[in-house]
């Protein structure tokens, strides 16, 4: 099963990290990533650039409104993600708890859906197609 680890950090913590030794941060993250690569569980992930470079497409109105970052009211910013292929929820939790993050940061851990999540809609045409696409319990 696949899990996404989503890094969420308060704006204050992001600012505080500006005063930290960036090389130290890179080294800590690098060692963490390497440990997951060597364990064969890390299959994807990336960091995100500064929220100031991002923008929001808001569907509260039609047509949707595009607003430049960093989005005013938001208290936590998504800063990056990892995708892990692990054997259980507990294993995902174990890897997440090893991330080199500090106060102000959270990892939201979400399982990536698979066919078993759509059993109640088994008759839906797209769900049937999807099931064929992926094969019963297949990887990927």
């Amino acid at each position, binding site marked *: 099963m696949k899990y996404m680890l989503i890094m969420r950090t308060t704006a204050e913590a992001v600012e505080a990290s500006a005063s930290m030794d960036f090389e130290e941060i890179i080294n800590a993250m690098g*060692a963490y990533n390497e440990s997951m*690569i*060597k*364990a*064969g*569980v890390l*299959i*994807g992930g990336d960091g995100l650039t500064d929220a100031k470079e991002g923008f929001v497409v808001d569907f509260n109105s039609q047509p949707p409104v595009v607003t430049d970052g960093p989005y005013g009211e938001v208290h936590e910013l998504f800063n990056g993600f990892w995708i892990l*292929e*692990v*054997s*259980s*929820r*507990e*294993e995902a*939790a*174990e*890897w997440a*708890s090893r991330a080199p993050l500090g106060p102000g940061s959270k990892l939201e851990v979400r399982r990536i859906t698979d066919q078993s999540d759509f059993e109640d809609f088994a008759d839906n045409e797209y769900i*049937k197609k999807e*099931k*064929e*696409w*992926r*094969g*019963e*319990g*297949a*990887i*990927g």
Partner: protein
Amino acid sequence: MRAPSADAGSDAHAGADRIRRTVDAVWRIESARIVATLTKSTGDFSWAEDLTQEAVADALVQWARDGVPQNPGAWLTAVAKRKAIDGWRRRERLDDRYRALAHDLTEAAATDARSPDLLDDDVLRLVFTACHPVLSREAQIALTLRVVGGLSTEEIARLFLVPVATVQQRIVRAKKTLAAAKAPFETPDPSEWAARLGSVLGVVYLIFTEGYAATSGDRWMRPELAQEALRLGRVVAGLLPREAEAQALVALMELQASRFGARTASDGSPVLLADQDRARWDRAQIGRGVAALARADELGRGRGPFALQAAIAECHAVAPSVEETDWERIVVLYEALGRIAPNPVVELNRAVAVSMAVGPASGLRIVDELSASGALRGSHLVPSVRGELLARLGRSDEARAELLAAAQLTANARERDVLLAKAARA
């Protein structure tokens, strides 16, 4: 402590179950390093494996009572080391090893004191030990999944559709065999290196192929088995970044696994390559496979058997359709593969590729030669390919007879259905 043992008033069974799953997860992540560390310290793989299993049993009790420790891997290692010291004490064999271990335990965070590179070396020794040539293939597979992959005996039994007692027996016997052979806890000498590495990669790929095309059972594929192999393959490739074939094996497994989704129809029946909807192939996984093959090629040692097979899988993965596949290139790759690793199955695949690149009559000639040599006698593969080619040549009666013969020979129920359906259409 990271988590309370259980909320007051909550179901004790649920709590015990949760702890069991947490211990399993930690074991998944740490087993190889713990067993490797203990084997290094005690010089006895078999005993080290017993000690770590006892430590896991202790964890189930103590973590349920006191919570999960801050560094669960270090906890398990320390408990196993303490058990080793107790064992020596009982046997009154208090030599230098005992002193070294006792010293380790007095140091704070003993496991962290060792550099990750040294730890990797020990894990690599463990991988070679689990795949030692004195062991049967079945024993190598069980031991590798257990100590390197961190799977429980129950999980291995479930994956291979055999009773738990059978797996237990295999592991006990494997440990006895290693002890009897006095297999040293070392990576192989340069003179043996290629053969021993081949054995490790072979074990991983065997686990994968059993998941990719199950030889038994009523399911066509067992993706969870292939997934364990992929994970093991990534571990080995991480330990041996300079070994092109280790990288190439990962590439091959990623590329083949990328088609899993398209290989099974919604009723569980197999969908063959030509009929697969390529939009259903996992593009991210193809990308990982292509990148792994590039890593293997960059090492500049030329392509070995896994790299050639990965290159063939890559040809399929990047082709928009069967017709637009570079079959000539696939023929060349199969020829190269047949030369460095002669194998009747490879020859049969070459025949299929030739039939696509040149025509079914040319493919059939190769199959007939193979058939005349007596290779693959008793396997469903030759009549199945022969029947297919005869059908394409319009020789329907012969085609039907071959496909029915193939259906009789396969042990996989799903594959039998496909062959019978083909015979009916021929």
